[in-house]
């Protein structure tokens, strides 16, 4: 479904990604783990279209998307839920969700999608009229996910959704991500919460210093000694 | 002594080509000096005996951005660096105040155009090189205006004046001259230059039922006051506006609605053949908006006077020319013209108060000076504003 082949990404003259290749199949949950500053967000931003690779290719559903403008990428069915969620602070929960349905594809069916989202996150329905800036950290993260779903995506890119969340919300969060797949969505996930993400993911990639250093079935990676030592703190 | 060879007279000026003053400079002195220089040069220039030939005028104009600090610096640049032969004036009363001491310090004649105020008179003694051509309030327009009102039996007046030298001065003189003739001042309001709405003040004036409304302000406010008087249907028996009414653009804006509005005036085509010739020269092929029936003839006369003074002095020496300007009377477009104590003598004036009548700015009042030529009787009360004012097309 998503195929990243051999991309290099630069910030000015500094290279952040070196020949990164990976693939995500239909209805898969794929996790990307790595240390701080490894380049995970950079990779996600490149797939999502906020950054352009200097070389290499990104294919989505058989079409080249590297270099396309952001709106076109969103239209093609990719939802990018950025680091920290970033809801629009001065819009209500509902308006935030409606913004998620901005692509034409989704706009016409937004009422229907809204119902689905409210079904997944009943908490958001309760807070429908509240301004996003006044939500708690967990609610903000839910709102961001809900907003991503509003665009009727085929593929969701999550950037550290568990950042700063209380344990009880964490549970909820991973449950929801898992349920997305059941609804026919594909998920590509960056997480520092390595154990949880590997537990819900089918496959995972490990990134170190801007390069993919290993990949595999997540169950296997959980047993891998290097991973255990470097990322699970065991 | 033989003067070094010379083939032109360089005249320097710092003018507000940009900034808020530009709109004044553009319509006031500029058309006059441009036409004047073109005419003099077409005749070959000014004959200067010292060089025994006619010298054409070359203008050197700088833009002071409407900033007085810049103006003072550019004035010194013109004098010191460019060593211009003559200095022509900056625009506006405050600039004359700032420029005059500098010109005087370097013994440069400064014959002003736009602006001037009575408060400079005490200083004229110490500024022998300063010559002011535009009229002041106290012994020019206001007494004449008061006479006109008194003659027609007006009893009350309401004054709106601008918060600056001009407004202070004219309002001050009015509150002396009008009561002298039995005309009561029932209200005086001073307004800041950028005022955007005069309707509440005008409504108050309307309530006083004053016979005459006087708007002693600059064009923006005068036009605003006219507009808003029309818009609220306020019809005083006499309406006097400060600088603004005398310009062609005033008529261009209001058309026939100007009927009966009074303003400051010097002359029109009917005043004399010489005046007719001047106005034809100045306004030929120009839109009506370019006309000015008050300042233009004065500035022109001033520089005609200046030219003759140079020819008489036969030199470009400022002091000698100044002495001639102080002493002599020359014939200009006004008639016999002279300066007294640095001010253009009132005897030279051809008019003081004008009034729009059938699209012409008639001179309706002047002092009892020899040059005065009243071209039409003062209409009182002025006709009401047309209601509704016809859109022009």
């Amino acid at each position, binding site marked *: 479904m998503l195929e990243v082949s051999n991309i290099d990404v630069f910030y000015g003259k500094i290279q952040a990604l070196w020949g990164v290749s990976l693939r995500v199949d239909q209805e898969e949950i794929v996790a990307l783990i790595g240390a701080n500053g490894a380049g995970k967000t950079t990779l996600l931003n490149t797939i999502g279209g906020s950054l352009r690779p200097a070389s290499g290719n990104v294919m989505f559903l058989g079409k080249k998307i590297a270099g396309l403008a952001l709106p076109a990428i969103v239209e093609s069915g990719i939802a990018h839920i950025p680091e920290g969620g970033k809801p629009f602070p001065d819009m209500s929960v509902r308006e935030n969700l409606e913004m998620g349905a901005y692509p034409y594809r989704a706009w016409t069916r937004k009422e229907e999608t809204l119902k689905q989202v409210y079904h997944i996150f009943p908490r958001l329905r309760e807070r429908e009229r509240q301004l996003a800036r006044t939500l708690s950290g967990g609610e903000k993260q839910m709102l961001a996910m809900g907003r991503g779903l509003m665009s009727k995506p085929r593929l969701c890119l999550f950037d550290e959704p568990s950042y700063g969340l209380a344990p009880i919300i964490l549970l909820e969060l991973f449950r929801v991500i898992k349920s997305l797949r059941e609804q026919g969505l594909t998920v590509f996930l960056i997480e520092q919460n390595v154990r949880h993400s590997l537990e819900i993911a089918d496959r995972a990639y490990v990134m170190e210093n801007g390069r993919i250093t290993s990949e595999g079935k997540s169950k296997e990676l959980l047993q891998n000694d290097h991973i255990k030592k470097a990322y699970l703190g065991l | 002594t033989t003067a070094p060879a010379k083939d032109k007279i360089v005249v320097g000026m710092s003018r507000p080509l*940009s900034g808020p003053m530009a709109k004044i400079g553009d319509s006031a002195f500029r058309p006059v000096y441009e036409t004047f220089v073109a005419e003099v040069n077409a005749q070959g220039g000014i004959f200067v005996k010292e060089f025994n030939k006619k010298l054409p005028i070359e203008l050197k104009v700088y833009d002071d951005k409407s900033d007085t600090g810049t103006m003072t610096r550019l004035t010194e640049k013109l004098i*010191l660096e460019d060593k211009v032969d003559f200095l022509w004036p900056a625009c506006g009363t405050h600039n004359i105040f700032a420029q005059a001491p500098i010109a005087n310090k370097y013994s440069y004649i400064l014959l002003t155009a736009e602006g001037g105020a009575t408060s400079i008179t005490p200083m004229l003694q110490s500024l022998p090189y300063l010559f002011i051509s535009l009229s002041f309030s106290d012994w020019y327009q206001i007494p004449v205006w008061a006479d006109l009102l008194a003659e027609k039996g007006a009893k009350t007046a309401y004054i709106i004046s601008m918060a*600056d030298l001009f407004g202070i001065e004219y309002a001050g003189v009015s509150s002396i001259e009008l009561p002298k003739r039995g005309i009561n001042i029932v209200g005086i309001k001073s307004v800041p230059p950028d005022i955007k709405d005069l309707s509440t003040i005008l409504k108050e004036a309307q309530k006083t039922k004053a016979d005459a409304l006087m708007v002693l302000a600059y064009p923006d406010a005068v036009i605003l006051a006219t507009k808003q008087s029309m818009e609220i249907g306020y019809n005083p028996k006499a309406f006097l506006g400060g600088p603004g009414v005398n310009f062609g653009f005033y008529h261009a804006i209001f058309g026939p609605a100007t009927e009966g509005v009074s303003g400051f005036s010097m002359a029109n085509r009917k005043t004399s053949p010489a005046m007719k010739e001047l106005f034809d020269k100045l306004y030929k092929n120009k839109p009506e908006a370019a006309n000015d029936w008050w300042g233009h003839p004065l500035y022109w006369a001033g520089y005609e006077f200046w030219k003759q003074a140079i020819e008489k002095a036969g030199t470009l020496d400022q002091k000698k020319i100044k002495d001639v300007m102080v002493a002599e009377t020359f014939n200009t477009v006004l008639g016999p013209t002279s300066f007294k104590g640095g001010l253009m003598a009132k005897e030279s004036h051809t008019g003081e108060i004008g009034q729009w009548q059938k699209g012409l700015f008639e001179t309706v009042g002047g002092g009892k000076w020899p040059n005065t030529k009243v071209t039409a009787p003062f209409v009182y009360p002025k006709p009401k504003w047309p209601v509704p004012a016809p859109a022009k097309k």
Partner: protein
Amino acid sequence: MDKTTVLSKKPLFLGLLFLLFILFAFLPLYGSVYSVILVTAIFMHIVLTVSWVIFSGPTGYISLASAAFFGVGIYTSAILGKTFPLPIVICFGALTSFCLALFVGALTLRLRGIYFSMFTFGLVLLIQQLLLWYEVNITHTRGRFVIVINNATIYYVMFAILAATILTAYFISRSKYGLALQSIGEDEEASAHTGINVTVLKTIIFAVSALFAGAAGAIMATRWTYIDPFIAFNPLFSFMPVLMAIFGGMGQFYGSIIGAVIFAYLQEMLITRFPYYYMLIFGIILVVVILYLPGGLVGLLQKWRKGDLAEKHANT
């Protein structure tokens, strides 16, 4: 950035500085009168710009109060000029500005960003209008003449003010207070929690910067011969320092000086050589500089030097 280059460059730099100092110190002796006048005006711009940069540069608080401080200096000088000797008049001008800035600074501590800018700009217009109203309705005058003094004296006074401004700016920027100001610009809250008395520091530095603008106004008034509220409190003097500083480049201390000099000179050239097209050309230059030299003139210089270095490296 190793020690040897710093050591080898320092004498050269100091020498250059000394040379410039000599050059300007004796200008009235060898230069034409007008060059003295022009340089005085340029000095004035530098003083206004550098004094603005002292506070606004590091903190990022865009003050538009320069015209107010400058104007207060001008009016002080116009009022006291006839009764007191020049040095006292200038000190008074500076002090009045200082006090005004203390007051305004203390009032506006809560305001950040654009709100601070707008407040300071409002201040200029408010003083202008109040003064106008006072003159028209209370004293029934408008404007006043200023005692004129000779150009060389004005020049030297301005030169002294300039030197004081630059030295003060330099030492503040080098001191721990300079660092603290910069931290305020980056994150005021964090600064406070790091132990910096943000309130006092901001207010004092703001007032110090006003000191110089006031002094410059006090001496400049004597060149202008006549002043009124509109001449003295001209909003242009609020915008100019900001424009000049950005034009020169705020990244470096000397950027504002370069900016002021070139900006002032450029203006002078345009209003005299191309008076009818001054605005057009000037506007185009502004837009082009902003578009193509994001770091200002200093940014360009640095790019050049970097380019040079890169080339050298490439060659070796």
